[in-house]
């Protein structure tokens, strides 16, 4: 499986491209969530689950330089041989610009970037079991992993958000098949459990033996998930979000404190083993 590969630094750099991608679709999924589908020949076939792209939020180069100088890192929601799909949340000026980009225009995309989810190999042909915990827009980074993992694992996918309209959870998950078990939590109780994702985990962990735990979302949630993984001995990866400038490892804007010193969220991460992180 692709996402089990450990990428060395040089091959990661060699596999990164700058591509002008044609926008296939850019549409609202809810009040605050949008989906952007891009045609990509260079980046799409190289994407591994967990990696991200760094994209300009306007189709006009001068608008980018003078209005939206910094690219935005967005995790890849879905990718196949010629398409990349991203899900983004409307949060500020950059994403407000991005929703104005119409189909047919071109966006400058840099990628794929970063480390991928590192699922431990199963010892025999038995079916593994994995627990994925996504909070808010961070859930998007787990979808490609869920698609791949369900080929070999039963996957408990815990998806949380502030309310039902912010859940990154839709009919795409049906493609994961029957090995996917969905668990929903919302802060306001508008869907699933009324509360946090973290509330659902003790019962799941008590009742199942997990080979792998992966989480992406608010850092406070990831920290709690990582603590649970440590106390129960489950191998756990986290995907961290940072502000980024270059996105390729040069500027050191996106530093993460780890037991090995400062690491870069862009190229050393975004996926880290949870035990490396100094929370």
């Amino acid at each position, binding site marked *: 499986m692709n996402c089990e590969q450990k990428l060395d630094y040089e091959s990661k750099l060699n596999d990164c491209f700058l591509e002008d991608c044609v926008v296939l679709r850019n549409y609202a999924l809810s009040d605050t969530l949008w989906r952007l589908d891009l045609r990509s020949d260079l980046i799409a076939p190289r994407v591994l689950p967990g990696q991200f792209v760094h994209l300009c939020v306007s189709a006009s180069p001068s608008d980018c330089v003078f209005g939206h100088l910094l690219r935005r890192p967005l995790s890849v929601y879905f990718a196949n041989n010629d398409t990349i799909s991203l899900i983004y949340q409307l949060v500020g000026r*950059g994403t407000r610009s991005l929703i104005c980009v119409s189909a047919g225009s071109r966006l400058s995309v840099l990628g794929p970037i970063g480390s991928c989810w590192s699922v431990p190999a199963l010892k025999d042909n038995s079916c593994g079991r994995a627990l994925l915990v996504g909070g808010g827009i961070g859930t998007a980074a787990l979808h490609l992993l869920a698609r791949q993992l369900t080929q070999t694992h039963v996957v408990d996918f815990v998806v949380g958000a502030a309310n039902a309209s912010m859940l990154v959870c839709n009919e795409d998950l049906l493609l994961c098949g029957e090995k996917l078990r969905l668990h929903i939590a919302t802060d306001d109780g508008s869907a699933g459990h009324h509360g946090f994702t973290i509330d659902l985990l003790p019962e799941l962990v008590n009742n199942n033996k997990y080979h792998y735990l992966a989480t992406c979302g608010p850092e406070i949630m990831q920290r709690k998930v990582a603590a649970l993984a440590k106390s129960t001995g489950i191998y756990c990866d986290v995907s961290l979000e940072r*502000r980024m400038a270059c996105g390729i490892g040069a500027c050191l804007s996106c530093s993460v404190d780890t037991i090995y010193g400062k690491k870069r969220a862009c190229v050393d991460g975004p996926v880290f083993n949870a035990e490396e992180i100094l929370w």
Partner: protein
Amino acid sequence: MVKHAVTQNECLGVCESVNLAVNLGGLMMQNPLTVASGTFGSGREYHALWRNAGYHDGIGALGAITTKGVSLKPWDGNAGIRITQSAAGMLNSIGLQNKGVEEFCAIDLAWLKQNAAGTAVIVNVCGHSLDEYQLVIQRLEEEASVSAYELNISCPNVSCGGMSFGTDALLASELTARCRTLTKRPLIVKLTPNVTDITEIARAIESAGADAVSLINTVAGMSIDIKSRKALFERKVAGLSGPAIKPVALWAVYRVAQAVNIPVLGMGGICTVEDCVEFLLAGACALAVGTASFNDPLSAPHLLEGLQQWCEQNGVRNVSELTGALN
């Protein structure tokens, strides 16, 4: 002045090529373009990307590579948020994070030697004290692949050293003089615009033996999170860069070029070919592209191609003719 008397039509027949080479205070550059320290690491990350985009020499296309600041011991850089976007620019508070001169020599210089042997390497040197700057240079003198030094006395993001040397003419002069005794290599001093009179500092470092002066470093700025009513950056101050500061940089380059006889490495918000030409006309001998690389990682090779074309179309045979050629 009849420097630009050749018309475009004549040029198409005559100017088959443009001589882009410049001499920056003894540093021979194949073209006037380098990168602003701190925006480019040591080039390795951009090298692969440029090659993937069809620039087969990778970062070897540059006139010089300017490395991120190198200190004696590893520096952790600043805690908390390190960047934010602002109108036509960005603020950074990285804090000169680097792994120290030993690891720089073992990894970065070794990589540069193997992958960009034909291109000049300017090592940006930073320190907390006069001694630290000197010790870094002493160590780098052992390395054959270093072409020149850029003394960083202008970073607003460290509390000890950095900008404190660049805002005091006496200190700037003493540091330059001490480093001058340690090396015959071209010594460039990078100035901050956050002073009352940048020409005073420029004259001081010229008298102390600098071969060239580079400017500007970032402009001191601030950002506030109104929800928490806290400064966005832990150190409160951060460095503003990008097209927002270009007019400030251009004016500083013009004034310094008028005030000193050493060549000027101009930078500050360069994004377009027109920006490059403006800096040259204002008096810059060479140019650095910085923040623009974050928006377009191929900015530098694009600007190089564009500058060459501009020269061809405007009858400029030697790019050095443009330096200070303001009418």
